[in-house]
């Protein structure tokens, strides 16, 4: 009996979030006939793709005990730079323009990374600064005006479909598998966990902790810009005010997915489920016609519940 109880508890701790996700889906499919249709899932996945991509980078950062508050601003600047290149009198190809946008993300991520890793400034402070600086640069870049008339090739990454699957979802899937693989099967991935678990002992065992920490911020910057390109392509214009407060949903997805804010513990698959839960809640409550005020209350409750689950799991160990 006792053993059974414990087994159930372990199961709950390991798969609690997946189980919660299933119950949420079952509940919503009972409440609304449209929820389980393919068309609706295309919507949910497409709506989740941007937050999902941000949350993947955020997971890397949080695993090293860091935080990246600048993702929403980097997203906007990346989108705007790419937008400015695919339009105008002599537009560049979508490919070149996207590379430039991604390079902006990498550069801003590198600044974050260098300040955190080299100069040991607290990640919260560094990225809070970047949140403001990158947003300001976004407004300076085009005098605060949106950039419209994005080329058709470029819009494909936001609006296109490959068969029945939207392109943003495919980009999310590829991003997920690449970074899941890196985290799980490469030395760098193991170092990320080691740095977050115990930086000092990671350092004494010969890991270049600075390099690892620098790299996770570069990854987060790159993925923020990638999300920015998709957002601009989806909304058919690069808006300087895009992505305000997106860091909150990205952090929420990571935390709901079971990654510990004190670093070293967590998985990318958890994060993906976390992002899906947020997407499903927003979609389901829209379908049911629930006011957006309740949406915020429910999302907040789930975040805290997820952390409680995390705490109880740690107590067991």
């Amino acid at each position, binding site marked *: 009996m006792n053993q059974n109880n414990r087994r159930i508890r372990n199961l709950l701790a390991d798969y609690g979030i997946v189980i919660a996700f299933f119950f949420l889906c079952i509940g919503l499919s009972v409440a609304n006939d449209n929820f389980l249709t393919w068309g609706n899932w295309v919507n949910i996945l497409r709506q989740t793709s941007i937050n999902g991509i941000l949350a993947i980078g955020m997971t890397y950062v949080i695993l090293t005990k860091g935080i990246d508050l600048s993702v929403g601003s980097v997203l906007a600047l990346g989108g705007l730079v790419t937008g400015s290149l695919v339009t105008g009198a002599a537009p560049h190809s979508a490919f070149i323009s996207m590379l430039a946008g991604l390079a902006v993300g990498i550069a801003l991520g590198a600044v974050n990374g260098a300040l955190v890793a080299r100069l040991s400034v607290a990640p919260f402070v560094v990225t809070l600064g970047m949140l403001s600086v990158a947003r300001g640069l976004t407004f300076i870049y085009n005098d*605060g005006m949106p950039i419209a008339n994005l080329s058709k090739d470029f819009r494909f990454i936001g609006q296109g479909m490959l068969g029945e699957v939207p392109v943003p979802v495919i980009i999310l899937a590829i991003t997920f598998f690449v970074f899941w693989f890196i985290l799980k099967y490469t030395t760098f991935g193991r170092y990320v966990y080691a740095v977050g678990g115990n930086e000092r002992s990671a350092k004494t065992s010969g890991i270049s902790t600075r390099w690892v920490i620098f790299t996770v911020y570069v990854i987060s910057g790159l993925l923020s810009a990638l999300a920015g390109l998709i957002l601009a392509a989806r909304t058919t214009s690069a808006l300087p005010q895009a992505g305000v407060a997106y860091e909150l949903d990205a952090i929420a997805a990571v935390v709901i997915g079971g990654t510990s804010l004190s670093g070293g513990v967590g998985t990318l698959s958890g994060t993906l489920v976390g992002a899906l839960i947020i997407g499903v809640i927003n979609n389901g409550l829209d379908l049911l016609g629930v006011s957006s005020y309740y949406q915020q209350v429910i999302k907040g409750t789930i975040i805290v519940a997820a952390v409680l689950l995390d705490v109880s799991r740690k107590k067991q160990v």
Partner: protein
Amino acid sequence: MRLLKIAAMTLALSIAATGPSWAQQKKTYNIGAAVYGLKGEFMQLWATALKEHPAVKDGTVKITIFDGNYDALTQNNQFDTMVTQKYDGILFVPIDIEAGAAGVEKAAAAKIPVVGSNTRVNSDKLTSYVGSNDVIAGEMQAESVIKAIGGKGNVVILEGPIGQSAQIERRKGNQNVLAKYKDVKVLEMKTANWSRAEALSLMENWLTAHSGKINGIIGQNDEMALGAIEAVKAKGIDPKSIPTAGIDGVTDAVRAVQAGTMVSVLQDASAQAQGGLDVLLRSITGPSYKPRSDIWTKYSAQGLSWGDGTAKQFNIPWTPITKANADAMLATRK
């Protein structure tokens, strides 16, 4: 190093010393423009137009723009700054209809005239208000969508941030018209916070929840209407088959009107800004002041009149955007 510092200080001092003597050559009016925030395209257009006013261009007026960053407290602090620095007049675009009143009172106590523009503030100390009536815009847009669907069917409404004066008044306008049409049903009404991305997701979900039942879309601003159109397109539906209306006349919306996918009415940022400055200058310099912006002649046929420039309120008319006037509007935006 020290030498450098001394050089810098001397330079700074000499600039400070020469400053006032320049000002004495010709009276320059220091005008502060306290706007709720510069992140949306509309306020950008407003600020650009203000700097294009003839009095600013010829140096009679020096404009300083204060970005309120969408925060009532920030705006309040900026009023303190303008009062302490003895600005000659203030143009005010408040974020909050009630919270803005405190700043206006402070300025009034220091005998600095304040003219409201674009959004309202509840204060009898305001010298005048130059803006457009959002209730009328809400009526115009609802009327055009309902007419386009033949006076009956289902509509959805994308609302602004609940509690902002534009949302409250545009909703009132929507409802005034909806009350007249018993055969029009509002399927959904929810905020998308003026945001294109939020409206896109919301509309996608509505199109699923009410598949095939949505006949018309009322977006309380252009950004949200544009997001809704993207959702309609993504669903494989011809956007021309679901009449959609926005408000404001941002650049993308003017283009969408040209393409025939939406209707919108222009809120003339330039008239609100330049008209506001004329009214303010009249209040500072006295009855001899003649308005210098061309907006007074532009809208005189539609009932806007300068009078002696001392009215408590000036209503800038809304202009429906049509394929005929779209080109001219885009030309003014570069």
